[in-house]
């Protein structure tokens, strides 16, 4: 019986997984184009060493600084079509947001008699807190427990049956649904201020971020369960359709604007955006509904978990 001990540690260029495969720990490390497997019997594991790292270090501070620089540029930008370039700070900010929300990092090292391996499937302290007690339980069930004096072996009763794998709800889902609701509120703010054209760049950026996050969430279908996978896939589909509408209207609007510029020297504030009010209202509506429904389903699935 193979059991995933921890949701996949994912990045665009690699991933790592920890599985319990009977009396063995199965560690999978992939560079996307090749997978490497390693098995460690629980009775051979000598030690786990968890080293905690602070959230901040110098290069991460630089990287976050760059993202916030782009965000400031976006906020200070005058109204006009070039705000469409807000995609860049959006990507940086999404990256920074996910990084900050995942919390402080750690390194988990496994020792056996013949090898010392860094388990890259465990990168954050939250992940370590989730998986280390289970690894200890499985190993102690095979070997007994070593008392803190380092000499006495405490024999443990037989380990109970492994619990059924519970569906995990990663922080990513909360961030995704929160972003949907926040997007709806921002659009409502622009609507009430009668500055819908100023919000188009930010809206496009948020749409891209939601698309990426929905896609990442759907990729975790094994850990988040079928319901959240369907919701994530629906968010991705809506984002794609909405992005299509936004791109179509933008291209048409800017095409007309450039024609006007070439003919009579129009200014950026003269742009007549296609379907501006309709698409903004529709966008706000589906974001609000999707965010709230997603959150309700998320809470309902948490409550029904054994």
């Amino acid at each position, binding site marked *: 019986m193979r059991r995933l001990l921890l949701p996949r540690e994912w990045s665009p260029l690699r991933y790592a997984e920890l599985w319990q495969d009977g009396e063995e720990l199965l560690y999978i490390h992939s560079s996307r*184009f*090749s997978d490497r497997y*390693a098995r460690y*019997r629980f009775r051979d594991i000598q030690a786990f060493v968890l080293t905690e*790292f602070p959230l901040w270090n110098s290069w991460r501070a630089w990287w976050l600084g760059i993202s916030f620089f782009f965000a400031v540029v976006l906020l200070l930008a005058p109204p006009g079509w070039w705000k469409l370039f807000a995609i860049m700070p959006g990507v940086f900010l999404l990256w920074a947001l996910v990084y900050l929300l995942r919390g402080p990092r750690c390194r988990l090292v496994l020792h056996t008699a013949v090898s010392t391996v860094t388990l890259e499937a465990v990168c954050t302290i939250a992940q370590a807190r989730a998986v280390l007690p289970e690894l200890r339980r499985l190993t102690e069930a095979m070997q007994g*427990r*070593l008392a*803190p004096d*380092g000499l006495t072996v405490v024999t443990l009763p037989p380990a109970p049956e492994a619990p059924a794998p519970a569906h995990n709800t990663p922080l990513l889902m909360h961030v995704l649904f929160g972003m949907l609701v926040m997007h709806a509120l921002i659009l409502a703010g622009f609507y009430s201020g009668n500055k819908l054209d100023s919000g188009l760049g930010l809206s496009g950026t948020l749409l891209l971020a939601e698309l990426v996050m929905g896609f990442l969430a759907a990729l975790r279908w094994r850990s988040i369960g079928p319901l959240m996978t369907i919701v994530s896939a629906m968010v991705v589909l809506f984002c794609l359709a909405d992005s299509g509408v936004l791109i179509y209207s933008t291209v048409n609007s800017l095409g007309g604007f450039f024609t006007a510029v070439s003919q009579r020297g129009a200014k950026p504030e003269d742009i007549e955006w296609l379907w501006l009010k309709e698409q903004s209202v529709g966008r706000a509506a589906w974001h609000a509904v999707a965010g709230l429904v997603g959150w309700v389903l998320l809470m309902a699935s948490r409550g029904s978990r054994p």
Partner: protein
Amino acid sequence: MGYVVCGACSARIPPTNWNQEFPLPCPMCSREVWVTVFPVALHPPKAGLPEQVVTGQEASCYNHVNNRAVAACDDCGRFLCALCDVDAVGGHVCPACFERRESPALHERVNYDSIALALVTLPMLLCWLPVFTTPAALFFAFKFWNAPALVMPRSKWRLWLTLLIAILQIAVVIWFFAAVVPGSRGGALPKE
């Protein structure tokens, strides 16, 4: 195992910090380190010494003719003494078969489906490259369509997507050479 080290500075963690209920600071770098040591680290299992062959009727080890055989290799069937008996998962194997089992081909897998998908998608950033990479992607897709899974099952969605994109790219190239190129030549001809 005589010692464990900090994952950040490689300083030795004193045994007084082992198996505590909470992480303790490293004596060198002061980072929080949580060490969990298990009994096998301090009380390793002792390997049994091989017994000598006493009578000519007893089976002896393939590698050590004077040692009494205690098991047969599950892979090659050779008799093994206590020294040569490698306790593999689910049985006994000789050192040679153990080496063969542990060869890289058995614990490493190349994902040709991912390679094919990358070959058919990434070159689209440079519009002329798919002319060369699409055939390579199709080659990988067809050659490794039925490649067996090693440990974890792997679905075929990447291969299907590769085929779909490759067919679309081929269609675009055919359309380009059939419709656009002759049209541009025709448009360049001088009017009579």
